[in-house]
């Protein structure tokens, strides 16, 4: 039975999982969830994710939510397919991958998601104006996080070591959206971060996903 991923191609959280699926060549069906109609708050979806958030995954008897738990599950399940994003054979490398996954989750995403929400979501989905004070505050926070990344990447090709891993992958969609805004300069101003971004975003698995990251595009 094919895995079903409930979510939207343009969503940062759903696309995190889609990128991981593509890296492993795993087959899946994307089942769109109509957020505008509140489908994610209806009983059928709440039965999959009681917090009413996308994405959720059905794989046989297993239902999972939380994008990072889903991507970790996919990476574990398909690790034999020539792709080793978790380094699970080496406990210390695996621990470093988990540490930098936590950094993305606890330090990076809260800052970048505020910029993304104000600059892209508020105008395109709500017809409102971005709150510049929030953007400025979040840019300052993100800048400090990226300073740490710049230093880290001077001694390590990727965040957790010299191997592309799930921690790097989890950054892709938010940075892709950031680069569509003037705040992409936060990446471009840091040469090692920029080089890392160019490397990880040129991977074929992500290029497939990037085409679907259309939030805020004027059609």
């Amino acid at each position: 039975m094919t895995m079903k991923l409930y979510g939207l191609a343009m969503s940062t959280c759903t696309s995190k999982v889609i990128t991981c699926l593509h890296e492993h060549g795993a087959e899946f069906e994307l089942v769109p969830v109509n957020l505008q109609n509140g489908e994610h708050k209806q009983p059928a979806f709440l039965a999959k994710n009681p917090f009413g958030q996308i994405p959720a995954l059905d794989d046989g008897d297993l239902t999972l939510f939380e994008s990072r738990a889903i991507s970790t599950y996919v990476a574990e399940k398909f690790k034999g397919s020539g792709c080793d994003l978790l380094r699970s054979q080496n406990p210390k490398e695996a621990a470093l991958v988990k540490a930098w996954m936590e950094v993305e989750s606890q330090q990076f995403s809260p800052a970048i998601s505020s910029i993304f929400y104000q600059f892209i979501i508020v105008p395109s989905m709500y017809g409102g104006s971005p709150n510049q004070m929030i953007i400025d505050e979040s840019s300052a926070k993100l800048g400090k996080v990226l300073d740490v990344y710049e230093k880290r990447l001077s001694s390590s090709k990727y965040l957790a070591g010299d191997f592309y891993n799930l921690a790097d992958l989890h950054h892709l969609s938010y940075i892709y959206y950031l680069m569509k805004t003037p705040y992409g300069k936060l990446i471009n101003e840091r040469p090692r971060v920029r080089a890392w971004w160019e490397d990880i975003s040129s991977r074929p698995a992500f290029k497939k996903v990037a085409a679907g990251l259309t939030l805020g595009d004027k059609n």
Partner: protein
Amino acid sequence: MVVKVYGPVTAACPQRVLTCLLEKDVDFEIVHINLDACDHKKPDFLLRQPFGQVPAIEDADFKLFESRAIIRYYAAKYEKRGPNLLGNSLEERAVVDQWLEVEAHNFNELVYNLVLQLVILPRMGKQGDSALALSCQQKLDKVFDVYEQRLSGSAYLAGDSFTLADLSHLPGIRYLVEDAGMGHLVSQRKHVNAWWETISNRPAWKKLMKLAGY
């Protein structure tokens, strides 16, 4: 050689790590970090944790930070010792991971902000933001409703056994119940209350409470 845990024993994130080490009977040494003196922002600490946060660990020549990464590492390293905190099959592990993510994303920030406004800022002689505190409390109410539903069908968050997903909640709920006057969020919910009573009576957690001087 013992595991060195850098951070105050009274802070939530170091407590997450210390509880895991106690559950697994791993010897450790707490290296106190004085947050009031901003020791965690000084150059030698930033070498351990470049974001200037506690905890960090040093285990012989291995160094790690981020409390949830540290507990995952030790739960895996000592998988066969003490309680199985990770789950057995790939699917069980994924469900443990899922609820650990819930704690990190749906629970932690609300508790952190609530405790900051109601407890930490007043302790520092500053004014807390009561509107923010109320907003956090209302959102936390909804999160606990989900937990109540989950725990009505399952003794622990990820299934029938105590795992990292439950462990990760201990420090935050202690702050809510003991320091922030928010015990009713737990006690008014039959299954959440029973779960909290069970997990907070585990010997490892009780040992930590003694170490922390509570």
